[in-house]
């Protein structure tokens, strides 16, 4: 039995197979419409999330399976003080596979160590968010045509932005990728990520101004400054409007640069940019469903 905790849990070949399956699902949805008949997905969401949870629910429903779960710790037994270990033991009796989001980092790993069913980390605090990474990789592979040899800019909250940490981890296994980290000083990429890049001799740079590096980028990954990651409201207010991608900045970008964003956005991408053909973030959400469908099938070891 396999779990997904970290994007590195799958090797590059396994990811290729997963993405091939996701692309096939996109092309032939009817072929997979009953692949999970009689199976149940438990969505255990200890903190609010609309997109990820609905994406999982949509994925399982499109495969013919059913979904149970909770979307808030207050409506679960966690409010009564139940441990993650105990909760997953119970959920293992109710469902065939579990997607867990938790504000505490490492919670899904604890769940996986006690679980009798596959556990998918659907985001743990500011740590990892592997299914978003799979979505990002599938989007890049499908829209850019390859997963190597490009310059990617990651902009915004790089300190608490778990999607960024996971994506950098995953991309670090592909050849000839140059990372440019664009953030204010307070939200710099953590050293465990840059330590990993140094160890692998992967080139990166850290800058503060987005405009300075815009012309170099093959893709730009924007992130939201997340209010829930701050202990201090004052810091959040000061940093939330630090970067706003608008048509003026887009004029500096390459003609075929991809703009990615894990969504939801607040105001870091101006709505005027949505109609730019380089904006890929809404398509990205669509790929999120296909990749989660492929992941569920893979972890349940269902072949169609």
């Amino acid at each position, binding site marked *: 039995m396999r779990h997904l905790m970290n994007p590195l849990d799958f090797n590059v070949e396994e990811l290729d197979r997963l993405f091939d399956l996701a692309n096939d699902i996109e092309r032939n949805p009817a072929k997979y419409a009953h692949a999970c008949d009689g199976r149940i997905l438990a969505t255990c969401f200890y903190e609010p999330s609309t997109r990820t949870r609905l994406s999982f629910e949509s994925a399982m429903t499109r495969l013919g399976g059913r979904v149970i779960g909770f979307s808030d710790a207050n409506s679960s037994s966690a409010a009564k003080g139940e441990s993650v*270990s105990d909760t997953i033991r119970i959920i293992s009796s109710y469902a065939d596979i579990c997607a867990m989001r938790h504000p505490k980092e490492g*919670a899904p790993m604890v769940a996986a160590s006690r679980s009798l069913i596959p556990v998918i980390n659907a985001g743990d605090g500011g740590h990892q968010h592997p299914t978003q990474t799979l979505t990002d990789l599938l989007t890049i592979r499908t829209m850019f045509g390859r997963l190597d040899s490009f310059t990617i800019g990651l902009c915004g909250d790089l300190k608490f932005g778990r999607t960024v940490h996971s994506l950098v981890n995953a991309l670090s296994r592909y050849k000839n990728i140059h990372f440019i980290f664009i953030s204010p000083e307070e939200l710099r990429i953590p050293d465990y990520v840059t330590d990993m890049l140094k160890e692998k001799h992967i080139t990166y740079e850290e800058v503060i101004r987005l405009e300075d590096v815009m012309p170099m980028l093959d893709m730009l990954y924007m992130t939201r400054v997340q209010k829930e990651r701050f202990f201090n409201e004052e810091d959040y207010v000061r940093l939330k409007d630090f970067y706003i991608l608008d048509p003026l900045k887009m004029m500096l970008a390459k003609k075929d640069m991809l703009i990615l964003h894990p969504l939801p956005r607040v105001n870091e991408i101006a709505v005027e940019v949505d109609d730019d053909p380089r904006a890929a973030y809404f398509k990205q959400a669509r790929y999120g469903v296909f990749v989660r469908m492929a992941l569920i099938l893979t972890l349940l070891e269902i072949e169609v």
Partner: protein
Amino acid sequence: MLNVGQIEQGYVLDHIPAGKSLNLYNHLHLNKTDCTVAMIMNARSDKMGKKDILKVECDPDMIDLDILAFLNRNITVNVIRNGEIAEKKVLVLPREIKGVIKCHNPRCITSIEQGLPHIFVLADEKKAIYRCKYCDEKYSEKAVKN
């Protein structure tokens, strides 16, 4: 000069920073064994000024010394057999450390999950960097509470 008798078999842990031998005693879980232990504190040392020494009379194979490398790689470990120094043990950093240091990341699951052991995994052997198994929070040698 205080004299402590020779041991027949066991370990002599030398060059322990002065005042730290009791921590080592606890980390090696010597309190859970019936070994004879001599703890010499604040001994004169040309190299260190003052130092602690631990002499442990025991089966040389019964104590896991790997944690010593994590706590302080400058400690000298002499293995004693038949009253003689049989070997100077080379300390190797353990791949995993369980229950010795705590993760101080307030966002880590170890901060709320009862009964969950604090486990750190060796991430960089050269720099002796350990990271929390659950949240990747970094701990270096300096951060250990001796």
